[in-house]
C-alpha cells in the first residue's frame, strides 16, 4: 500500500495542490452556471478570459518546457507549433493533420541537429 501510493504526505499534497484547485472551479461552474444566460455578455467575457488563460498554459509549456521537452531548442519548439498550426489551417481545421505535422517538424529538426 505505502509503496504503491507513496506516503500520506504526498497524497495530501495531491489533494491540496491538484484535486481541490481544479474541482473548486468545476463545482463553482455547476453552482453558479444555472443562472448564467447562454448568450449573455458576461459569458463572452468569461469565455475570452478562459481562452486567454488556456493560451497562457500553452505558452508556459512552450516557453518554460517541462522534462524532456527542454532538450528541444527554443526555435525548434516554436517552429514545430507554427508548422502544426499552418497544416491545421491548410487542411481546413483538421486537428489530426496539425498535431502530426507539428510533431514531424519537431522530430525532423532533432534528427537534423543530430
Amino acid at each position, binding site marked *: 500500500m505505502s509503496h*504503491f*501510493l507513496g506516503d500520506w504526505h*504526498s*497524497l495530501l*499534497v*495531491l489533494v*491540496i*495542490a*491538484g*484535486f481541490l*484547485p*481544479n474541482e473548486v*472551479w*468545476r463545482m*463553482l*461552474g*455547476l453552482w*453558479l*452556471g*444555472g443562472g*448564467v444566460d*447562454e448568450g449573455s455578455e458576461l*459569458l463572452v*467575457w*468569461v*469565455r*475570452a*478570459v*478562459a*481562452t*486567454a*488563460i*488556456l*493560451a*497562457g*498554459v*500553452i*505558452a508556459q*509549456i512552450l*516557453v518554460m*518546457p*517541462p*522534462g*524532456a*521537452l527542454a*532538450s*528541444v531548442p527554443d526555435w525548434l519548439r516554436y517552429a514545430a*507549433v507554427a508548422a*502544426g*498550426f499552418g497544416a491545421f489551417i491548410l487542411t481546413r*481545421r483538421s*486537428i*489530426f493533420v*496539425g*498535431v502530426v505535422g*507539428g*510533431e514531424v517538424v*519537431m*522530430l525532423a529538426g*532533432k534528427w537534423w541537429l543530430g
Partner: protein
Amino acid sequence: MAGLPLACLTQAGFASVMHGTTHLIRLPVPLPPLDSPSWQSPLRAFAWGVRSVASTVLTLVLFATYLGIGALAHDTHFSLGWVLASTALVWAGPAQIILISTLGSGATVVQATIAVTVSAIRLFPMVVSVLPMMRTPRTKRRHLVLVTHFIAVTLWVECFRLLPQVPRERRIAFTHGLGTGLVSVCLVANAIGYSLAANLPQLFAAAVLLLTPLAFLLSTARNCRQLADILALVLGLALFPLAATLNTGLDILISGVSAGTIAYGVHWWRTRE
C-alpha cells in the same frame, strides 16, 4: 501509372482520396438515430458513451499525453498509485503536468497550488457552457456532479460534437460513459508510461510533451467562434512571456485576465459601432 495523378485531379478522385482519409482520421462509430429503442435504457446510453471513445482522434492524443504524464511522474519519483490517483482526481492534463513538474523542481506546495489553481480557471466557463446541453426540467444539481468532474478540454469538445445526436434525457448517462471510457484509457496509458519510462528514449518523451500545447492550441482554435475568442487566444499567447518577466507566480492569471479583457473590450467596442 499515368492514370493515378489524373484521377487525383478530378473532383471525384479527390473526394475518394479525402473520403479514405476521413476514415483513417475519425473511425466512424455511428450513434443510433434519436428515436431508436436502444436509447430507452440509461445503461445502453452509457455503453454508447463508452463506445464513442473510439470515434475521436483526441483519444489518441490523450493516450499519448497520459503515457507522457506517467513517464514524467516516474522520472520525478512519484509512485504509480499517486499518478493514477492524480488522473482520477485531477483529470486535467496541463494541471497534472504543471503539478508534477513544479513539485519535481522543488517548488513549495503553495507555489504549486497557485500555479494549478490559475491554470484551472478555464474549467469554470467550460462547465457553465456545457451543462445547459444536459439539463432537463427534472434534472437535480446532484445528478450533474459526476458529469461536472469529467469536464476537461476533450470532453468539452466532444460534448459539443456528440450530444446533439443523443436524446436529451439520456445525455447524462451518455456523458458518464464517455467520461468513464476516457479516464480508463488514460489510467492504462499512465501505467504503461510509468513502467516504460526508464526505457523510453528522450526524443519520444519530448514528442509526447509537445502534444499537449499542439492539441490544446488546435482544439481551442477550432472552437473559436467570435472575434473575442480569436483575439483572446492570440493575445493570451503573446502576453504570457511579458507577464512571466514579472516573476510573480501569477503569470498566467495576469496575462489571461488582461488578454481576455482586452479581447472583450474590442468585441464590446465593435458591437456598439
